[in-house]
Every structure is written in structure tokens, then in C-alpha cells.
């Protein structure tokens, strides 16, 4: 029942939110709903931790061979946990922001959560496709209505990009469906398929392009910085913290086990593209003056590493990717929160217009520095564990790839520290002269995130244990 609840709670409460006219009511209602969802995830992790609770199966479209079947494996549990943590964090940290027609805003946010949850728990390809789209449509409206100046064109580009990807995936799913002996969309039937190499090589790309656009991987990344910049920050947090994980998740769940030959065949070229993307995005990030764009490009670089490590296709790399999915989500949301605080308070996101904020907002400065260090994967932060494992995996695949990809660590240090320095150190300028420290709710949220960062940096074992079963299934199926 757990996965059903994870979808139903945000879905139903989201629909209710549309009718809440009062802004306060909408905010508290959606915060409450997201906290309940989080509680359900925890109960699934610690109390109802057995198969009967984490699987669900009901008839949906028997004529088509599709059923409403959900299941929670280790990876699913971890990502639903990330989703469930992200939403209350986002709601709480942007609690003071006000939106026009806030009922619709929070309603769409919760619908997005329902879609994301569905993607992570779906055990049926058609159902997966449904949720994949369900997560996209509300985001389209969120960005287009509440975004920045150029929102309409930018969001449209984002939508068309991802929609092309999903449609190609649909064609691929349909093709696979007709290959299964029992004409079924169930993940089990797809896993037991033995496709010819020729088939694999074609269908692989139909799926991979969809996922590559979502992640995004160079050269499909062009929608991403614009969209992150133009979206309202609350949406950007969800986009970069959780939604890009859909792409990585989907590669691991739907690509690796079904197309083992094609994965082996194309892994080198994909890793090369990922690494090009990493270096390229890092170099651009160094040039950025806008905090949001800087974080966006840094995110492309991190995702590139995850994609490369997946296609290295060994145990240590995969373990790294899995825990890094969670860690990156936490870290990047932390960075966005700081960016949002600065923008809300000072009205600018330009690094060149900021400076000396540490004198005025010491708490914020300390918290940001920890987040920034996690972003460059310093030891003792959570990202170090993930990145170390991923580089290790990449190293086993090819030393040169690991070496070139390693440059991005140095570049990450350059742009991240540069950002910290320009915002917080130096002399105060006119804009920051009257700044005050972050509000209590933001401080508490950031403190929680920092604790998570340090805790998982010192003791990552729970995450590794959680995702062990997934790694086994993926690698055995080869």
C-alpha cells in the first residue's frame, strides 16, 4: 500500500489545493500534505518494510496488457525519500514568498510530486510513461505562469524538448511491448526479453534520447540553464533536485537491464559525450555572473559524471551513482535556497553586484560554505562518497576517461569558491549594506540539510545498504 499512498496523498491534496482561495491556507495545507507524505515514506522504510507493503498490483487496462502495478525497490525507496524530503523543504524555505493565485501554484506543485512519485514506483512501462508525462505538464504551467520575464518561450522550449523525448520513448515502449511473448508492459516481461542486437541498437536510442534530454546530457542540455533561470526558485529546486533524477533513474531501471548489448556497444560514446558535457558546463559555469545560471551549469556537470559512471557499468560506479542521486538532490536544493534568500532580500542575482554579505549574514554564510564544499565534493561531505565511488568506477572502465573527467573537480572548486567569495567576502557594497541574516525558517531548513550532508559524509552506509538490491538486479541481468 505504501507506493499507492505516495501517489494518492499528493494527488488528492493537490486537487483540493486548487480550490483554496486563501494564500495562507494553501501554503499550510500543502506543507501538511508533504509532511504526511514524508511520514509515509519513513513508515515504509522502518515499520512496514516488507514486500507485501511495498508492492501493489491492480487491473488497469487488461485488454492492453498493462496493469496498475507499483513496486518499491531500494532505488525507488531512496528516490521517493528524496522526493518526500524535497517538497516540505521547498515549501518551508519559500514559505514567505508570495504567489498570485497561490492555490493553483501549490496545487500544481503537489501534482508534480504525485507524478514524480509515480515515476519512481511504476513497475509497468505504460504506467511509467503516464507518470513521466504527469510530472511534466504541471511543471510546464508552473514555469509559464509564475516564471521570469522570458518564461513563455523558455518553458515552451523545455516542454517541446522533453515531449519529443517522451514520444520517442513511447514508440520504443510500444515496440518492446510487441516483442514480449505475452504482450505485456510489465517490467518483469520486459526484463526477460532477449532482443536481437540490431533491435537493441535502435530501440536503445529511442529510450536514451528521452532520458538524455531529461538529465540533461550534452548536447541535449540547452533547455536547462534557461529554464532553471526563468522558473520560480521553488520550481527550480524541484527541477534540479528531483526531476533530473528521473532521467538517471530511468536509465538504471529501464535501459541497463533491457538493452545490455546496446549499453555495452554504445557506452564509450555516451561516456565521451558526458565528459565533454562536464568540462564544457564547468567552463561555462566559471564565466557566469548570475547565481542561478551558475548553479544550473554546475548541475549539468554533476549529472554528466553520474551518466558517465552509469555507463562504466560496474558495481562500484553504480553504487556511487545511486547514492549521489540522493546527495546531489540535497546539496543542490541547499544551494538554491541560498540563491533564493539572496534574490528575495537583495533583489539581484548578479555576483558582480554582491559582496561582503558575510558581515551582515554570518549564519547564512556558514551554511552556504558547507553546501558549497559539498558541491565540490570535499571529504566529510556526502558528495565526496558518491563522487569517489563514481570516479573509481570510471577509473576501472578507462583510466583516461577518469583523468579527464577529474579536471571537472578542479573546475568545480574554481566556480563554487569564486561564487562564495564574491557573495560573502570583500567589502559590503550598497546593495548588501542593509542586508540582514536569513529568516528563521530558512536557517532551520539549511541547518537540517547541513546535518544531513555531514552525516551522510561520515556514514554513508545506510544509503549503500538501501540500494544494494537494485545494484544486484542491474548487474546480474547483464
Amino acid at each position: 500500500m505504501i507506493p499507492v499512498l505516495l501517489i494518492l496523498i499528493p494527488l488528492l491534496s493537490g486537487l483540493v489545493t486548487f480550490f483554496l482561495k486563501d494564500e495562507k491556507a494553501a501554503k499550510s495545507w500543502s506543507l501538511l500534505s508533504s509532511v504526511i507524505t514524508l511520514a509515509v515514506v519513513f513508515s515504509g522504510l522502518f515499520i512496514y518494510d516488507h514486500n507485501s507493503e511495498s508492492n501493489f498490483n491492480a487491473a488497469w487496462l487488461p485488454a492492453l496488457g498493462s496493469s496498475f502495478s507499483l513496486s518499491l525497490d531500494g532505488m525507488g525507496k531512496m528516490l521517493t525519500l528524496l522526493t518526500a524530503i524535497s517538497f516540505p523543504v521547498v515549501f518551508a524555505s519559500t514559505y514567505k514568498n508570495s504567489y498570485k493565485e497561490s492555490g493553483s501554484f501549490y496545487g500544481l506543485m503537489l501534482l508534480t510530486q504525485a507524478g514524480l512519485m509515480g515515476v519512481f514506483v511504476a513497475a509497468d512501462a505504460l504506467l511509467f510513461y503516464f507518470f513521466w508525462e504527469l510530472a511534466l505538464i504541471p511543471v510546464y504551467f508552473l514555469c509559464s505562469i509564475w516564471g521570469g520575464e522570458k518564461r513563455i518561450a523558455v518553458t515552451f522550449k523545455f516542454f517541446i524538448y522533453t515531449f519529443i523525448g517522451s514520444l520517442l520513448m513511447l514508440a520504443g515502449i510500444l515496440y518492446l511491448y510487441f516483442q514480449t511473448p505475452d504482450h505485456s508492459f510489465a517490467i518483469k516481461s520486459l526484463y526477460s526479453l532477449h532482443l536481437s542486437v540490431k533491435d537493441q541498437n535502435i530501440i536503445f536510442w529511442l529510450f536514451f534520447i528521452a532520458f538524455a534530454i531529461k538529465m540533461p546530457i550534452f548536447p541535449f542540455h540547452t533547455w536547462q540553464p534557461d529554464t532553471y533561470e526563468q522558473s520560480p526558485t521553488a520550481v527550480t529546486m524541484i527541477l534540479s533536485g528531483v526531476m533530473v533524477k528521473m532521467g538517471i533513474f530511468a536509465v538504471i531501471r529501464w535501459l541497463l537491464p533491457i538493452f545490455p548489448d546496446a549499453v555495452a556497444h554504445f557506452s564509450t560514446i555516451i561516456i565521451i559525450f558526458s565528459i565533454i558535457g562536464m568540462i564544457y558546463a564547468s567552463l561555462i559555469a566559471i564565466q557566469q555572473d548570475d547565481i542561478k545560471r551558475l548553479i544550473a551549469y554546475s548541475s549539468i556537470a554533476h549529472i554528466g559524471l553520474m551518466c558517465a559512471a552509469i555507463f562504466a557499468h560496474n558495481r562500484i560506479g553504480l553504487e556511487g551513482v545511486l547514492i549521489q542521486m540522493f546527495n546531489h538532490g540535497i546539496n543542490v536544493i541547499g544551494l538554491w535556497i541560498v540563491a533564493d534568500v539572496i534574490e528575495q532580500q537583495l533583489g539581484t542575482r548578479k555576483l558582480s553586484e554582491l559582496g561582503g554579505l558575510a558581515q551582515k549574514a554570518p549564519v547564512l554564510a556558514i551554511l552556504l560554505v558547507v553546501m558549497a564544499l559539498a558541491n565540490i565534493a570535499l571529504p566529510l561531505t556526502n558528495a565526496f562518497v558518491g563522487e569517489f565511488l563514481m570516479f573509481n568506477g570510471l577509473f576501472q572502465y578507462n583510466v583516461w576517461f577518469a583523468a579527464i573527467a577529474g579536471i571537472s573537480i578542479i573546475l568545480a572548486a574554481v566556480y563554487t569558491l569564486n561564487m562564495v567569495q564574491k557573495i560573502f567576502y570583500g567589502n559590503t557594497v550598497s546593495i548588501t549594506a542593509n542586508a540582514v541574516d536569513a529568516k528563521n525558517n530558512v536557517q532551520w531548513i539549511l541547518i537540517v540539510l547541513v546535518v544531513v550532508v555531514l552525516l551522510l559524509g561520515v556514514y554513508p552506509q545506510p544509503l549503500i545498504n538501501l540500494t544494494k538490491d537494485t545494484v544486484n538486479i542491474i548487474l546480474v541481468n547483464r
Partner: protein
Amino acid sequence: MNAIILSALLGVVMMFSSILTENRTIIRNIAIAGLLILLIGNLLNTYTVYSFNIDSHNMLRFDKFGLFFNSIAIASTLLYAILSGSDVVKVGNYPAESFALIFFALCGVAILSSYNTLLMLFLGIEIMSIPLYILTGSDKKNLKSNEASLKYFLMGCFSTGILLMGITLLYGASGNFNIESVHSTSNAVTTSYNYGILAPLGLILIFISMCFKVSAAPFHFWTPDVYDGAPSVFTSFMATIVKAAGFIAFIKLFSIRMADLGPSSSIILSTIIIATLLVGNITAVFQQSVKRMLAYSSIAQAGFMLFALYGNNDLSSEGILLYSAAYSIATIGIFAILIKMKDYTFDGYNGLAKKQPLVAAANTVFLLSLAGIPLTAGFFAKYYMLASALKSNGHAVLWLVIVAVLFAAVSVYYYFRVIQAMYFKEGEAETTEISSKFKAGLVVMAILIILIGINPSFLLNWFYF
């Protein structure tokens, strides 16, 4: 049989109703009642409760597929009359005429869904088309409407001529009008005469004429002008129910005879599909008027419906029924809203969401359905089309499916322009008065679309019931 007889009778009733009353509301209500009777009559026939029994000497054959399509067509017309009926009676001086013609066109639809000889195919197409020529020109004082009517008439005659020539050639080759009993090829072998080219040539001519009727490229040129020039209420009827009926007729014949076109048939068909998708989608992108955009989008949708012909299996017959229903409901809704707008350009929709949130929300559902987004009926419509093609042909057709989905992505561009105008742009969005009944109708249709989108067996189960 019920649908054919009742619709003809009701057409006559509508004609004479204008003697009794001039009141437009009463006339509209008579029409709605008539459509209800027609729907019930057809349902009685479908579930073999009661039907007129007239021996047609096997010229008509009533199977579940055809009867079910009749129900979809009649139900769509009913929705259309409920939503746009008050606008129908505003066109022209004699409102009852329009409804009489609509009933006659429905009679043609019913014949097309049940014909068993080529003669009946011809009759059905004519009975369906001639009322439409008149309806297109029913805004008598409007030059554009006159032009559209003339153009439609000339093009229609032209394609009917081709159809007749094709039928003649087939008759020459096989000696009868039956659509399935005589296979031209086997016939040529068993008799001592070799008719050679006659049968395939005849079939090709019929194929071309049917492409005219369903506005498949490159025989689509009449569509945008006619759809644009005709009074919007009638465009709505033409673009949905009539078009779907054309497809049913097309599929009924060619699901049996496609193979007779020879090994090149799949190449011809895939060329036409791609051309139709290309012309419809690409041209729609550049339109400034929503009405013209919808005309091109109807061409694009025809490209998808042609997949049913390509697949030619159980999925495609289910699929074309689903497609007809999904496409008709959504398009009728969009047109009903369009009619209420004062300005037909995209900019005319600016800010509609603020002024009429419910109407805008319903319109969004309809547009999403046409674009084929999951959770709407349009998704499963497209799904069935693609699946039917993949099921029959597997590997070989994958590239065609990929091309089709890419064009579906293009279609998102122009459908979403309307959504953008309604929700994200500031503006006045002037409308004529919108009654709460109208809104209720829209909401019902939007819910219908979503219900079918969540579970298409909601609709298709009736087919097997």
C-alpha cells in the same frame, strides 16, 4: 437500419417543423429530441432489441462495428447540438433547414457505416456530402461562405466523379458491386478473361477519391479554404462527424481490398501518411487564425487516422472508433468555444483564463487531447493507431511510427499556442455571452475526455457489450 430510416424521417420532420414555429429555441429543442430518438433507435438496433427489418438484398450489412460507429457519430452530434445548437439556429433565415440537413447528412453517415456494395458507398457519400455543400454556403450574404461552398461543391463533384469511374472499372473487372465476395485477382484467374489492369486501376481511383473525402495529402487542398469559409458551427460538424464517417467508409472497403493494390500498397499508404502529417502539421504552425489552424490540424489528425488502414487488424478497428470519439468530442468542444470568441486569431484568446476560467480549463483539456498528452482520450487514440501499425508490421514500420511521433511533437507547438494565449498572456479575450448551461456542457465533455483517457475500455467495452 434504424439509424438510416429514422434520420431520414427526422430530417423531414425538421423541415416541416418550421411551418409550425419560427421560434429558434423550440426548433433547437426539437432537433435535440430528434437526435436523442435517433441515438436510442440505433442503440436498440445495436443490442438487437428492435429494428426495422427491410431486406436490402445484402447491399447493406449491419455489423457491430458500423452500428457502434453510428452511436458515436450520433452521440457526438447530440453533444454538438447541445453545445452549439443555439449558434446553429442563428445562421441564415430558416433555422430548421440547417438541422434538417444535418439529419440528412447523418443518414449518409449511417449508410457509409453499413454499406456492402460499392453502389451503396456511392449513395452514402452523396447523401452525406450534398447537405454539407448547402450548409457550407448557408451564410448566404457572406462572400467567403459562398466561395467555400462553390469550391467544396466543385471539388466534391470532382472526387465523386473519380469514385464513380473507379466503381465502373471494378464492376467491369468483377461483374458485380459487392465489396468483398469477389476478389478481382482470383476472379481473373477463374474466368477465361484476363482483365489485368482494370481492378487495380479502379481501386486506385476509389482510393484517390476517398483520400479527397478525408482530406489526406496531396488531395487536401480544398480543406483549409472550405473549413475557413464555412460558418464555424458547420465547420465543426464537417471536421468531426463527417470526417470520421469518411474514414469508416475508407477503412471498410480497404481493409478488405488493400492487398489488391499489390505489393506497393504499403509504400503508397506510408507516402500518403507522411505527406498528410507533413502538410497538416507544418502548415498549421504558421497560421494566425485559430480556425484555420484547426483546419490544418484536422488534416494532421487524418494522417494519424490513416494508420488504422496501415495496421488493418483488431487494434485498428477499435482504434478508429476511439479516435473518432476522442477527436470528435475534443474538436466539437474547441469549435464551440471558438464560435463564442469575437476574434478568431490566437491573440483573441489572450487572457481568457482570467475572464472565463472554466471555459479556458475545458479548452485546455480538449487541446491536450488533440495533442495526444496522456490522461486524455487523444493519447489512447494515437496509441491505438501506432500500436495497430506496429502489431501488423513490426520492424518494418518502426521508422514510420518514429516520424509520426515527431510530427505529434510538432502539433504540440500550435495547440499549445492557444493554451499560452489563454493562460500566460494578458488581454481582453472578448466573447459573446456564455451561459452557464454551455459551461456545464463543456465540463461534461472535458470529464468524458479524461475518463476515456484514464481507461479507454470505458468506451470500448460498449463495443463488446
